[in-house]
Structure formats: C-alpha cells, structure tokens
C-alpha cells in the first residue's frame, strides 16, 4: 500500500486551502500598499470630507460612501419584497407548467451580465426618468437597474428556501383553518426565513459591489443626494470611471476607494456569518 501519497495529501490540500484564504490577506495588503501614498500624506481626515477633486488634492469619500449604501439599500428594498412575491408565486400560486417556465425565466435573467442591464438602463430607463424628473441619471435609476439585476437571485434563493419547508407544516396550518394568505405569510415564510434572508443579503452584496450597471445610469456626480432624483457617484463607479486616467496620488486615492469598498463588503460578510447558525 502506498502511504506516501496519503502523507502528502494533508499538507498539500492544507497548503491549497491556506493559499485560498491568504488571498484575502494578500488582497487587503495590496490595496493598503497601493493606497499608502494617499493615506500617508494629509492623514485620514482628508478622506472624511465631501469633495472629490483628486487633481486639486481633495479626496473626500464620505459622499460616495453614503451614496453606495443608499443605492444598495434602495435596490434591496425594491427587490426583496418583489423577489419574495415571485418566489411565493412560483412555489404556491402558479400552475406547475407555468411555475417551471417562470423559474426558467428567472434563471435566465440571473445570468444576464450586468453590463447588459446597464446598457438598457442608459438607453431606455434614464431617458424615461429624464422626461419625468430631470436629469434622469440618478439614485433612483441606479436603484431600479440594480433591483432588476438582483431580483432573480433573491427570488431563486427564496424559492429554494420555500421548497425546503416541509409539506406537513403547511398542511397542518391549513388544517387549523388558517387562510391561504396566513399559511404562506405566517407559516411558510417564517419557516424559510434563513434561506430568504441569505438570498437578500447576497443580493445586497451584489448591489453594493456592482460597477458597470451603476456607472452607466447613476449620473456619477459626487454629492450627498437630497432626493432619489439626484445623481450620485458610488465607490465602485468612482474607481472604474477614473482608474484608467489616474496616476500618482490620484491613483492611490482610487485604491483608498477600493479599500473602503472592501471593508464595507467585509462588514456585510461578517454580519451574514453571524446570522448563520454555527456549523454543526
């Protein structure tokens, strides 16, 4: 018997797992190193201001940070209830053939690249909004496009969670004389809340990290939005918009945007991990 391959297996696979996890450390390290020229001079406070004029030495990220959260929150608020409704529809309301077709459509839309959503948003949605509330490219446009983008994911994951709710539980509720609405909303949804919550968090993470679709429709003005019709610039769009044009401290300032974005994502992942039950 060859035991030598066994003695190799553990350290080798452990090394591969280690490398994979170290990617996180490496990534944060590189972001920090590249940000350093901007972080080292002028201190942290320069990033706390509202104004982003990197060529005039002003690197405020606060407005973009708030805009990022606002856009992601708006998209999630729109997509979560609608996605849940779609999942309930496909699981409990639609005739089986229609449900299968509807699920297929959701799966197809979940695979549509974000740049396609952005393209459509820029050529169709923004002009429509502009006619109603100029300038059109706005927090609302970004929220709508992102909601559309994450809705299939939210719906599919909610559907999977609802499908895992035991039939007996629902039958029991019906036998107790609960109305259908109450059975679904008070029994099925709470029973599947972990899966649904996981899907919503995943959607939120995607909305937070989306770049191209937002860049194309959000208007990209660095400011605190006074209403949903105001244009905003999010952190991801800031990087994509200026990275190819930036040198020196300007480039370092964009890496600070990336670092901040990474920290936001880390916070979200940490929060999601706390929601999950400890692994059994």
């Amino acid at each position, binding site marked *: 018997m060859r035991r030598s391959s066994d003695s190799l297996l553990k350290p080798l696979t452990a090394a591969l797992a280690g490398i994979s996890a170290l990617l996180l450390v490496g990534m944060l390290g590189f972001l920090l190193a590249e940000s350093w020229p901007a972080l080292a001079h002028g201190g942290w406070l320069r990033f706390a201001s509202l104004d982003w*004029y990197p060529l005039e030495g002003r690197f405020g990220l606060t407005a973009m940070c708030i805009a990022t959260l606002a856009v992601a929150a708006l998209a999630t608020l729109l997509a979560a209830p609608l996605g849940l409704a779609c999942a309930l529809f496909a699981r409990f309301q639609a005739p089986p053939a229609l449900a299968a077709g509807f699920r297929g459509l959701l799966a197809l839309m979940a695979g549509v690249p974000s740049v396609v959503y952005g393209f459509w948003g820029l*050529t169709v949605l923004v002009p429509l909004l*502009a006619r109603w509330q*100029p*300038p059109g490219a706005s927090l609302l446009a970004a929220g709508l496009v992102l909601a559309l983008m994450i809705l299939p994911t939210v719906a599919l994951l909610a559907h999977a969670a609802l499908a895992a709710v035991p039939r007996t539980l629902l039958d029991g509720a019906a036998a107790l004389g609960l109305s259908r609405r109450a059975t679904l909303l008070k029994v099925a949804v709470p029973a599947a809340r972990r899966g649904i919550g996981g899907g919503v968090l995943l959607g939120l993470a995607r909305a937070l990290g989306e770049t191209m679709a937002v860049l194309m429709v959000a*208007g*990209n003005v660095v400011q605190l939005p006074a209403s949903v019709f105001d244009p905003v610039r999010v952190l991801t769009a800031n990087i994509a918009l200026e990275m190819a044009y930036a040198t020196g401290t300007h480039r370092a300032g964009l890496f600070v945007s990336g670092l901040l974005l990474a920290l936001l994502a880390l916070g979200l992942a940490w929060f999601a991990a706390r929601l999950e039950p400890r692994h059994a």
Partner: protein
Amino acid sequence: MKRFLIFLATLLAALAILPGAQAAGGKLVLTGSSTVAPLALEIGKRFEAMNPGVRVDVQTGGSSRGVADAMNGLADIGLVSRALKPEETKTLTAHTLALDGVALIVHAGNPVRQLDDAQIKAIYTGQTRNWRAAGGADLPITVVNKAEGRSTLELFLHYTGLKNSQIRAQAVIGDNQQGIKTVAGNPGAIGYVSIGAAEYAVEHGVPIKLLPMAGVPATTGAVRSGRFPLSRPLNLVTRGAPSPLAARFIAFARSPAVRDLIEAQYFVPPPR
C-alpha cells in the same frame, strides 16, 4: 492524486514560460487617450497587415496615462489627445496624428441656438439653472460634465477658465458616447464631447445638436481650418528618439495611407 499533481505542475510550468513568448517582428505598446485609442487600433491593424510579424497593442486610458506611460517606458508610444504642456515637452516629443474639436451639445429639441462664453460659464457654475434664462423654454438645465483625468475636461476648463471644483454638474460621464446618450435622452441637458463623435451621432439620427463656440460653427470643417476655438491635436508621444519600429509606425500613422481611417473616426487629418 498523482495525475492531479502532474497537471498542476504542467500548468504552473506553462504559466511560467508563456509570458516569455514574444512576437517575432517586434511589438509596439501604445497606451493612453480613449479618444485616440479606436483610431490607433485601426492604424495598428493596417500596420500589422503591411509588416508581418509585428504586433501593435493598444490599451485605452487617458491622456495623462499616455504621458506617464511614455515617460516611464511602460509604453513605446503614448496617446495624448491634447497639446503637451511646457514641462512635458522637456522629455517628450509629440507627433500630431489628427485634429479634433470639442463642442457643446444640447438636445435637438432645444430652441437655444447659441451661447456666449459668459452664458456657458454661468450654466456650468450653476448660476443659470433654467433654460429660460438663456433664451430657451422653461426647463431645468442638466449640466453634463466629464470625469477627472479626461483631456476633454482639461480643454474645457482651460477654455472657460474655470476650476473643476467650481462646476456644478447634474451628471458626470466617462466617455463620449455616454455623454451623447445622456444628452439625447434629456431635453434639458447640455454637455461637451468630441466634435467627430457628435457629428457622427447627428448624421445617424441621434437627437442632439452642436452649438457654435464664440460664433464659430462646430464642424470638422471649422476644426480643419483652425478657426474653431476649442480644438486640440491628437498626438503620438515618445520619449527621446523613438525606436526604429516606433519611428516607422509614427511615419505610417502620419502618412496619407491612413487618411481614410482618420476620417472614418470623424477626426480631421492634419494639414500638410
């Protein structure tokens, strides 16, 4: 398991070797301005076809990137869509490839026919917020500005004498087409883009119109004659004397053999 290890080893070996592979006839790397990049790409293709074995790689970015890359040697040739600044000409040499203008555009339905420089400044600094004040309909103005680092922005700031922090924009865009799409989709919008791109859009039925600058109509013809105030050279820049291959490419790019390519991108071939 063993097969898996062998696979991994082969893969790593392949990865180690591949970056060493080089094109036989030499390789030129061009980086910089996104305005020049599509044109440089087309010229590069024709140059490759005439010089088998040569490869021309074009990477898009901005003019400042083109200057920096040519300066530190990352690129053989930098693409810069503006005239070089005095301090840049100490180390870099510019070879003008074509001319381009930057024009103000508004929606085709906008009755405003022209704006003087003071009006442009008032609109871009947010003092004028409604088209009524500029002789148009009662419609809020959507100011479209360019993102930092773009040479179109630098040119516009230079012309108006404004600082970017003085501009109050309602939309900030990256590339020309985003600007054209934004203005075409918004009756109250005003923006500035490359004249070539705007003329192409107008000819293809996009609902925008070009405003004259200081009384000179915004056309490629006016750019050609040198009368248009907001015009700029599109440059290939090199540090010191270019390599023989780069010199051949530059000569080719400035020859009549690429005139049709320049015009196909709606730029103006340089006067000869």
